[in-house]
């Protein structure tokens, strides 16, 4: 008897609480914004800070009165680094929560997983990470770099005199779609620059690989054959043992520089960077950039991390995908304001040509047709405090080429977003 009454009491109070909850939600008219980043599993390392920066941006937009007079309401879900779960959670956001827009995904494989859902339900996804290109969906806006906004300028820099004049290339990556496609593009690009196949070595490791002894020994052996550079598309926390091994085996940046495409301030937080000074990374933004917009962005983020008590808040850093998330969300808010609605078709139309003064120090514009952001390219050198020092950058933002001219057959691709490509 006693237990039953307890259950009854509990159900009653739960339903009252639920009622209360729905009531408050309905009271203030809000716009729901979905956030689809892994908060557990292997990718949590990188994606957690994207969720937090998205929440910070929502707070900032709300503090200025929201969009079209309505406040934004975040709906955070955790796809747990599980690729099929991304599709499931994406569908849940679009059909149950009825969000106006989703910010999310890091790995290309998770984006490929949600893509059919967004195209079927006509959702809107903002993808904030540099990737391999070869995609242009009308339901996605890509605020990270395409290969011509990161990989190709980076290799050009390595071949230049200041970059060390490399003539041999060791392409090292994690074994999945992004490194494989990027290296395919790079190989074709290197061929066009007169680099022969015997001077290119391509090596892949599994996700989470932790023992880089053999690979570093092979890099040393390969580098004895002439001026060598390593182009690393190693993803996630494998980078830590890789860089530690480089330092321990005494491979210096002055002899064999490593150019990384997926190593940012966040990844370096776990490493002592003193032996790594001079190794490079190519991005479109670095925390160390000295301009008023970035100073405010970094200060806001540090204050937010402290106020919310985020883990490791005293050493909070910003990085490129965080900036891309921040820029993407502001672009969406501006477009929704301009369209006077959050209807996907209207917002998509308003987004074309929309621009925003970004922390990278440039005013970034969303391309009128190809759904990609125009971005400046920057090459940074690792410093002993875990930050990057920009050693080279483009003078103006570059237009993205999602269909790389270095992959045969891409000439016939349409230059505007089409479903199912």
């Amino acid at each position, binding site marked *: 008897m006693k237990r039953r009454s307890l259950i009854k009491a509990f159900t009653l109070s739960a339903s009252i609480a639920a009622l209360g909850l729905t009531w408050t939600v309905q009271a203030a008219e809000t716009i729901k914004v979905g956030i689809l980043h892994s908060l557990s599993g292997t990718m949590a390392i990188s994606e957690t800070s994207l969720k937090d920066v998205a929440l910070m941006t929502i707070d900032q937009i709300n503090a200025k009165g929201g969009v079209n007079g309505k406040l934004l309401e975040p709906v955070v879900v955790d796809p747990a680094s599980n690729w099929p779960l991304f599709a499931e959670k994406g569908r849940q956001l679009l059909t149950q929560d009825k969000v106006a827009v989703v910010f999310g995904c890091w790995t290309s494989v998770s984006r490929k997983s949600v893509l059919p859902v967004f195209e079927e339900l006509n959702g809107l996804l903002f993808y904030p990470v540099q990737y391999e290109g070869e995609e242009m969906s009308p339901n996605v806006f890509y605020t990270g770099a395409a290969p011509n906004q990161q990989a190709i300028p980076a290799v050009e820099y390595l071949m230049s005199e200041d970059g060390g004049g490399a003539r041999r290339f060791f392409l090292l990556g994690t074994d999945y779609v992004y490194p494989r496609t990027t290296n395919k593009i790079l190989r074709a690009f290197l061929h066009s620059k007169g680099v022969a196949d015997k001077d290119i070595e391509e090596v892949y490791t599994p996700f989470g690989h932790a023992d880089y002894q053999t690979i570093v*020994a092979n890099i*040393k052996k390969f580098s004895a054959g*002439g001026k060598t550079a390593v182009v690393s598309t190693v993803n996630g926390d494998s980078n*830590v043992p890789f860089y530690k091994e480089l330092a321990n085996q005494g491979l210096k940046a002055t002899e064999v520089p490593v150019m990384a495409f997926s190593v940012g301030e966040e990844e370096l937080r776990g490493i002592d960077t003193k032996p790594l000074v*001079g190794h490079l990374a190519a991005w479109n933004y670095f925390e160390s950039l000295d301009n008023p917009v970035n100073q405010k962005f970094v200060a806001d983020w540090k204050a937010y991390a402290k106020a919310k008590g985020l883990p490791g808040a005293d050493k909070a850093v910003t990085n490129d995908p965080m900036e891309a998330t921040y820029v993407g969300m502001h672009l969406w808010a501006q477009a929704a304001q301009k369209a006077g609605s959050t209807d996907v078709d209207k917002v998509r139309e308003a987004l074309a040509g929309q621009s925003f003064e970004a922390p990278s120090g440039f005013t970034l514009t969303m391309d009128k047709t190809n759904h990609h952001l125009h971005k400046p390219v920057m090459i940074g050198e690792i410093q002993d405090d875990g930050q990057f020092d920009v050693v080279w950058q483009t003078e103006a933002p570059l237009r993205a080429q999602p269909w790389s001219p270095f992959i045969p057959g891409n000439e016939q691709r349409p230059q505007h977003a089409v479903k199912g490509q």
Partner: protein
Amino acid sequence: MPKALHRLLLCLCLWLPFAAQASDAQDFASASANDRARLLQEWAAQPDPARLGLLGSLQQGRLGPDQPRTLRLNNRLRGLLDNALASQRLLSDDAQVRLQAAQHLQRRAQPTQLGLLERHHAAETDQAVHAALGLALANLQLVAAEPSVRLAAVRLLGESGDPLARTRLQALLEPAVESDEGVRTAARTSLDQVERKLLIGELLGQAFSGLSLGSVLLLAALGLAITFGLLGVINMAHGEMLMLGAYSTYGVQILVQRYAPGALEFYPLLALPVAFAVSAGVGMLLERTVIRHLYGRPLETLLATWGISLILIQAVRLIFGAQNVEVANPGWLSGGVQVLPNLVLPWSRIVIIGFALCVALLTWLLLNRTRLGLNVRAVTQNRNMAACCGVPTGRVDMLAFGLGCGIAGLGGVALSQIGNVGPDLGQSYIIDSFLVVVLGGVGQLAGSLWAAFGLGVANKLLEPQIGAVLGKILILALIILFIQKRPQGLFALKGRVID
């Protein structure tokens, strides 16, 4: 009057080096990027002891010892700077410093430094430095006009075993590059010599990385060899014990940093007892509260320990955050020792191999030479009989489980020095740990030892041939075949009472 003039001159002479340095610094600061490179090349060709301080400051991006950091260096300038510094150091009085400089120049000397090297080579009195300078010189003399100089250089390079010498000698095999027949033949002989030496270095390197991977596997699996091997608990939370050990190291590092910064160099040693205590404590708590009730029910144990592992992961994630934490290597665990020209053995790996063997030895002693070990073996072989003889089986279970977890904690300290420390650390080692224990033979410590080193070496022998991804697949396939043929593992427990 002459006296005063003398004094003035003397004063000027004394001031000259400083004046020169100041003007060098100004020259460098006002130069463009290309002029800076040219300036550094000039300094490398004509060293001046007065410039040593300036170059040292430049390396840190400063124009003088107490100037702020204003300079932006890139890899090209950094390389030239290292080279100029090596040139200056050839003037040092310390033979060790000269040797290091000469070794640096072996790899990086520029043609403009030829005259400098020749002068120092002729004047050098120290044997080792003389030889090192000779090699550095030989690299530059390969393009000398005189065939006899080239011949001598080629012969000298043949004895070096330097990986860079191979490429240089290979170029000389072409008649288009090298016109002299005699030099070409000598280059061929020298090349064979160099290649033989490089092969030895390569094989030793592979063997070493195999042993190193083996030691990592051993440290990861040793604790499991007790909890799963001896006690028979399918302990899915074993990986999390490694993780707790690694996080204890992190905690100790933070505490030492805050309260005793002087002892920071030795924090991993302090972390060992802490990690052991933390992991063993958590292990014993789990044993008393959860696992004790599940003995003899392997499926439930598996589920329960798996649940525990998820709880521990999320707990750590809540406390320390989802991101990896920084565990720095102290000075004595960074860098490596150059054994052969193409073989550097990292200190951290050497220490970990030694540490793994020590832990294995201690565990063996504990199990075979102490009262606790005797009790553990008695309980695992025949629980009822042991209980009859007065062995407190419950207590022994708890202590043995705690011991296994504590050893996993020690493994965690070692793993924190070579890999990532994050909430998922344990997940990446749990499969390997089970592999090692099952392959070695459940219940056999020696089996785990052999299995760990065997797997490590096999993995590293396969990796260069077929790549890391295929290598891993092949190893797993081979283990499946092996277990099919011999389910009891490499070493089977012999005896009548096996349940």
